[in-house]
Every structure is written in C-alpha cells, then in structure tokens.
C-alpha cells in the first residue's frame, strides 16, 4: 500500500512510510483513517460530556441538594454544552464526512488531504486545550453561549472558552473549504449534482453554513477574549459597549450552527431509509432544496434566541415570522422520509430503527420549536427547561439518533463485520426509553417555572417539579446502561463480529461497491455514473411497473482482489499537519495568559510548520503538478 519513494528525494524531509503503527496514524492523510480518528475521539468526549450531565442530573434529582457546589455546577453545565456541541456532535458528523464523502462521489481522497489531517489535529488539540482549563484555575463557567459582560469577567474563566472555540472553529472552517472543493470538483464522471447521494448534498449545505457562520463567531470570540484579557471595550457598558452586540454576533453563528448539527444526521437518515425500505428516497429534489432552504433561511432567524433581550417589538415580530417558516422545509423532509417507507418492504435493522426514531423524536423537537416562535409565549418558555427539552429532542433525539444509525449502517463497510443485531435492538429500545424519560418531563418542569442553569432545584417550585426532575435523573441511569451496551457491542463486533461482505444491506450508493474495508485508493476503477443510486442501478433494472429486477452479477463489483493498484498515485503520509498544529497550544495558552513569549513561540512554530508543509510535495517523487489537461490555457 505504501507508494514507492523516488530516488534522489530530499533526505532532510521527515516522512514516515510505514502503513501500520502509531506514527502511521499520526501522519495519515487518508480520509478513511482520519474519519476513524474523529470517531474514537468523539466517543471519548461523549463519555466525558456524559459524566458532566450525570453530575448535573445528580445535583437536580431532588430539591436543594448539595452534591456539587454552585461553582462546580456552573462549570459542569458550561462544559457539558461546549463538549456536546463542539467536541461531540460536530466532529461526529465530521467522522462520517471524512470517511464517506470521497467514497460516495467516486473520488480517491478529499481535495486537500493534509488540510484534512490538520482539521482533525486542531480538533483534538482544541479539545485538550479546553479541558486543560480544569487544571489551570477552573473550567469556563459562563455557559456555552458565553454572554457578555459576564463572560468578560475574570471569574468566568472564559478566556479558555474564547481561545478554545477559536481553535475548533479553524478546524471546522478548514474542513468546510476542503469538502466544498471536493464535492464541487472531484465527483466521478457522470455524477451530476442531482445524482449525488443525499448525504453528499447535506455535507455540501453544512459546509457552506460553516463557511459563513464560523467567521462570525470568530469575530465574537476575538472581541470577547480581548475584553477579558486585554482590556478592550467591546462589551463594557461603562464605556458605551453593548452586550447585545455579542448576542447578535454569537447567534448569527449560533443559529446556523444548529442546522450544521442536524443536516448531517438528516443526510444519514436519507441514506439509511431508502436502503432498508428498498425504495428510492421520496422526493429527492425537494429534499435537496429543502436542505438548502433550511440552510439559507437559517441565516435569517438568529434573533429568535433573543426574544426577551433588549430588542423591540418590530424585530421580535420579524424573527417570529421567519422562524415559523423554517418549519415548512423541515416538514417537507419529515413527510418525504415517511413516504420513503410507504409502500416499501421495510427491514427493521438497528440502523433503520434509529433512523425511524430520528424522524419520530425530531418531529417532537420541531413542534416545541414552533411553539418557541410564538413570541409572547416565548417569554414564558425562554431560559427554562422547556427549551432544554426542545434542543435535546432535536439534538439527542435528532442528530444523535441519526449519527448512531449511521454507525450501525456503515460499520460493515469500515470493518468488514456486522454489529450484533440483538444487542443493537436492546440498545435502541433502552436508548429510546431512557432518552424520553430524561427529557420528556423537562417540557413540563420548564412550564411549571424551572429556569435553566440553576445550581440547585429550588424547593419552592413544588413537589411536581421535583418529581419530574427525579424522573429525568433516573432516565440518565437508563441511558448509561444503554450506552454501555452499545460500547460493548461496538468493541466486540470489531473483534469477532460476523463477516459482512461488501454489500450486506443490498444498498444503493457506490461506496458499497468497494472492497471491505476499502483499499487505500478507494476504487480500483473510478466508476462512471449514469444515474442517481448508481450502485442500485447496476444491480437492478426496473420493470415497466417500476419493480427492480436483478441483473447478472459482475457489473456491480468494483474491486479486483488480486488487482495491481501500483499505478494509482496517492498522497503520501505527512507529519507536517500534526507538527504544525501542535504550535497552537503555546499560542493558545499565550493568548489566555497574555504571555507574549508563548504567543511568539506558538506563532513562529506554526509559521515554520506551515512552510515545511508547503515545501513538502503531496507525494514523494511528485513533480507536484498534476498534468491538467488544458491548464496552460488558464
């Protein structure tokens, strides 16, 4: 699998050439390996975020408990939110983007493989940086939104938040650029936009959302950080600063962010459901355009997070109406999924169960979202557990269910084995039950007066609210058991799961055509695409009534087990992304502590790393210039 090294290469360059071992993972530029790195890192952060939420629920299981001090509690809910949003859900989607995208469009890798590795390392180091705050004076405690001026106070420990999220933002932005170029420019011959798998559409939309939203939060975080550490005056009312500016900048990012979190899961569900219903996705064009519409309108509703803030009735009315209308493209998607199932021959594998669960739970979350849009009543719902219920239904019941569905679905392609279906079903039903037990009662406790971010459950809210909180806390126990079952199944299946073959689900898209696991270069022969659901159409022709009829075997299989892939030129591994990104740590600490020496070291390190990267060719012996047909004409 290692490419040959041309004679006479510059020996001053460090370049690992082995394909196994620790260093090979550190230096990998293979999108599949990067996806796997993301996945395991996500599981670690998911565990940590789960510990944080368990502590929160332990504190709130009864009124007036003192399991945690107020300070620790405030750090817990802040870090839980940051972890789940930035270190779990987003990178979990990235894991799928990374692994699947080139396979789904018939490419051998993404457009910029080393930049891809860079994104992973920046994510890892950003997460480590954020968590190091626990050991350096205390974790951020200003909530995951970090409203100023509270978060510019030193007591909020929010410098780590500002710098940490900045690092993570760069990771996402780099990924966004990478994926956009990959999708736009590297599709297999014949794969028009309207023939791409829906997951690829959602990746593209998500990437555009990231592209335009991340720079805005970068601005907000720079301002926050400089107010906190360098005495800038962006949000200090004493000198004329306006806290509401921070809210606008944050939510201009924050609202697209929630669509960034849900669209990938919607993309996954749009792949899983057709496969297990044995029918194409219902209303493909509408699905693609609805996704784009959600993304586009998503940039116009941000102030619905600010209905009770210092804004007047006119913006409140405008954003209320805009928010209601996002329900329309969302509803289109829900109905399209249900009608994908309608008339099918549905196999309820674990992957399918989670996708159906997604549609069901996300609908509930969407309906409470529409209720939020009713501004006069939003004033009752905002900043209460009703909101906590809403976003957990769309993010946990929605995004997480969809992502887990994806794990069960593509596990065979990644490992060549099947996950145990019995355990999978136990996982699903306990997960569904535990999730609803935890978050269902929160709708009620919120409307009965329980605000968010409260370090104790106030006695005066009454015994009913206390009961609901107890139920929520018990639900967490169920979820912990359920997650353990999943983890057990995952590890056991990797080790001794039943062999799956290349196409265990009789799937529709071309990633299932490859070897299992896919070879380093993905496809022996880049497929020429002639329709949507290309793989399906290679396996089946349609009768006049639209019923699939199997075609002779052979046309659908890509790989030649004994084939010689030596003529395929792949990028070589590179240590430069990891080396370069390591410099962000001194830079970050320097920015938090206003230490110019550290800032200088970090900056020089990163610039040097960047030049090392630039000088190194993508593959050894490469003249580093593709023979672009007609490029001289450009």
């Amino acid at each position, binding site marked *: 699998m290692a490419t040959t090294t041309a004679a006479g290469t510059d020996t001053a360059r460090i370049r690992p050439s082995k394909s196994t071992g620790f260093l090979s993972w550190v230096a990998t530029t293979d999108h599949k390996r990067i996806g796997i790195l993301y996945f395991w890192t996500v599981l670690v952060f998911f565990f940590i975020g789960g510990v944080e939420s368990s502590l929160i629920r332990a504190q709130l299981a009864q009124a007036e408990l003192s399991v945690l001090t107020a300070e620790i509690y405030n750090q817990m809910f802040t870090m839980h939110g940051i972890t789940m949003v930035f270190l779990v859900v987003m990178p979990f989607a990235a894991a799928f983007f990374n692994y699947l995208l080139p396979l789904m469009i018939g490419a*051998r890798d993404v457009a910029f493989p080393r930049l891809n590795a860079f994104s992973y390392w920046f994510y890892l180091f950003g997460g480590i940086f954020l968590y190091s705050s626990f050991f350096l004076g205390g974790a951020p405690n200003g909530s995951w939104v970090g409203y100023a001026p509270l978060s510019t106070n030193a007591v909020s420990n929010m410098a780590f938040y500002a710098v940490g999220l900045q690092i993570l933002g760069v990771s996402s932005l780099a990924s*966004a650029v990478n994926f956009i170029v990959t999708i736009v420019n*590297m599709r297999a011959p014949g794969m028009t936009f309207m023939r791409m798998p829906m997951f690829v559409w959602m990746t593209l939309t998500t990437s555009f959302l990231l592209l335009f939203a991340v720079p805005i939060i970068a601005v907000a975080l720079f301002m926050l950080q400089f107010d906190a550490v360098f005495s800038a*005056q962006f949000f200090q009312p004493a000198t*004329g600063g306006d806290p509401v*500016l921070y809210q606008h900048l944050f939510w201009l990012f924050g609202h697209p962010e929630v669509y960034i979190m849900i669209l990938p899961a919607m993309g996954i569900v749009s792949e899983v459901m057709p496969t297990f219903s044995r029918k194409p996705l219902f209303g493909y064009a509408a699905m693609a355009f609805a996704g784009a519409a959600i993304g586009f309108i998503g940039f116009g509703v941000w102030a619905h997070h600010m209905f009770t803030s210092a804004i007047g009735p006119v913006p409140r009315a405008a954003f209320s109406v805009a928010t209601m209308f996002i329900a329309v493209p969302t509803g289109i998607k829900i109905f399209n999924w249900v009608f994908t199932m309608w008339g099918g021959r549905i196999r309820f594998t674990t992957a399918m169960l989670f996708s159906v669960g997604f549609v069901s739970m996300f609908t509930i979350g969407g309906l409470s979202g529409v209720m939020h849009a009713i501004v006069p009543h939003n004033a009752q719902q905002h900043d209460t557990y009703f909101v906590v219920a809403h976003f957990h239904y769309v993010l946990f019941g929605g995004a997480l269910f969809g992502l887990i569905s994806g794990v069960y679905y593509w596990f065979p392609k990644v490992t060549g084995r099947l996950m145990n279906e019995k355990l999978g079903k136990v996982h699903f039903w306990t997960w569904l039950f535990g999730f609803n037990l935890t978050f269902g009662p929160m709708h009620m406790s919120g409307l009965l007066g329980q605000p968010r971010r409260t370090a104790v459950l106030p006695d005066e809210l009454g015994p009913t609210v206390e009961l609901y909180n107890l139920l929520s806390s018990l639900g967490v126990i169920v979820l912990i058991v359920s997650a353990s079952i999943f983890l057990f199944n995952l590890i056991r299946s990797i080790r001794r799961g039943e062999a799956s073959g290349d196409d265990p689900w009789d799937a529709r898209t071309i990633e299932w055509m490859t070897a299992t696991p896919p070879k380093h270069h993905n496809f022996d022969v880049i497929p020429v695409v002639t329709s949507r659901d290309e793989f399906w159409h290679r396996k089946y022709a349609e009768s006049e009534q639209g019923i699939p009829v199997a075609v002779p075997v052979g046309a659908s299989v890509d790989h030649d087990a004994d084939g010689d892939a030596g003529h395929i030129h792949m*990028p070589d591994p590179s240590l430069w992304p990891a080396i370069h990104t390591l410099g962000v740590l001194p830079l970050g600490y320097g920015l938090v502590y206003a230490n110019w020496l550290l800032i200088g070291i970090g900056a020089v390190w990163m610039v040097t790393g960047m030049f090392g990267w630039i000088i190194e060719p993508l593959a050894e012996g490469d003249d580093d210039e593709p023979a672009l047909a007609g490029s001289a004409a*450009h």
Partner: protein
Amino acid sequence: MTAIAPSTSMGLDNRKLGMWTFLASEFLFFGAFMSAYLLYIDETNRGPGIEIFDIPFTSVSSFVLLMSSLTMVLAHNSHVRGDMRRMRLWILATAGQGMVFLGGQVYEFTVFSREGLDLTQSPFASSFFFLTGFHGAHVAIGVLLLLGLYSLSRTGKIKPGQDVKTEIIGLYWHFVDIIWVIIFTVVYLIPELRG
C-alpha cells in the same frame, strides 16, 4: 494538489476553487468587524474619535497598497509567460509595497496611541483597531506568502507551468486590497465627507 485526479468536475484547479471558497468566508469575517465598527462609531468614551484620522497620510499608504495589486498581476503574468526572473521581481515589489503599507499602519497606530487612542480607550477605539489591525495581519500573512513564493522560486521549487500557485496568492492579495478599499472608504473617507 492532486496528483491523483487529472480532471476535475468543474474544470477548475482545486487550489483555485479552495482559495475562492476561503475568501468567501473572509468576507463575512471582515463584514462582522465592519458592523461592529459602524455600531460603535460614536462611542468614544470622551476620547478621540474619527477626527484623529490623517486622511492624506492614509491616502498615500492606500495608494501604495493599490499599486501592489498591479505588481501582483504583473508577477502572475510573468509566471504564465515563464519569465521567472521578472516574476520574482514583481513579487518582491508587491511584498515591498505591502511592507510599506504595514509600516505606515504601525506609524499611524503609534501616533494615535500617543494622542490617546488605544485599544482600551473605548468601543470605537477597540473596533477601529480590530478592523484595521486584522486587516494588517492579513497583509502581513500575505507578505510572508509572497516572500515564501519568492524564495521557492529562487530555489527552483516553483517552476514555469505552476502559475496556479502565484495565481492563488494573487487572489488572496487582491482580496486583502479590496477589503482595504472598503475600509478606507467607510472608515476614513465617508465620515470626512459627511463633515
């Protein structure tokens, strides 16, 4: 830098498409800074405000930056024609003008600081320095990229036929220039014209 796929779906080089995509996000980056600046234009906390600007001085450095875009175009042109010596010359000229611009900014900020306008003075001050400072940082990065391009060309690592590399750095440089045109107009000129 794909040595793998010789043809692309849109016929564009990946790197060019990548740079355009990145620049799209940069527009929002500067747009957000610009919005904050416009919001805070009168919040001077009893300190200096827009009257502190030295329009003639900043006009000169703006002109220099604008001219550097011209030399950048000439550099790329030379590269396309295969004249690497000329290309390096124009690259140096571009970088040099960039450094002159930066020097002018440093001087300007030092004067402002002495006159009581620094980052910590007021919302107006903070947003002014952020807007122009981040732009300056982008210019500095551009200068570094240009000097890198120069040295790589000197050592033969960048050859004729690889003009895409000069082109994408040129794209970045022009973008930085356009942002400055907008900043100069909105921050320096329009308030002056309003009186």
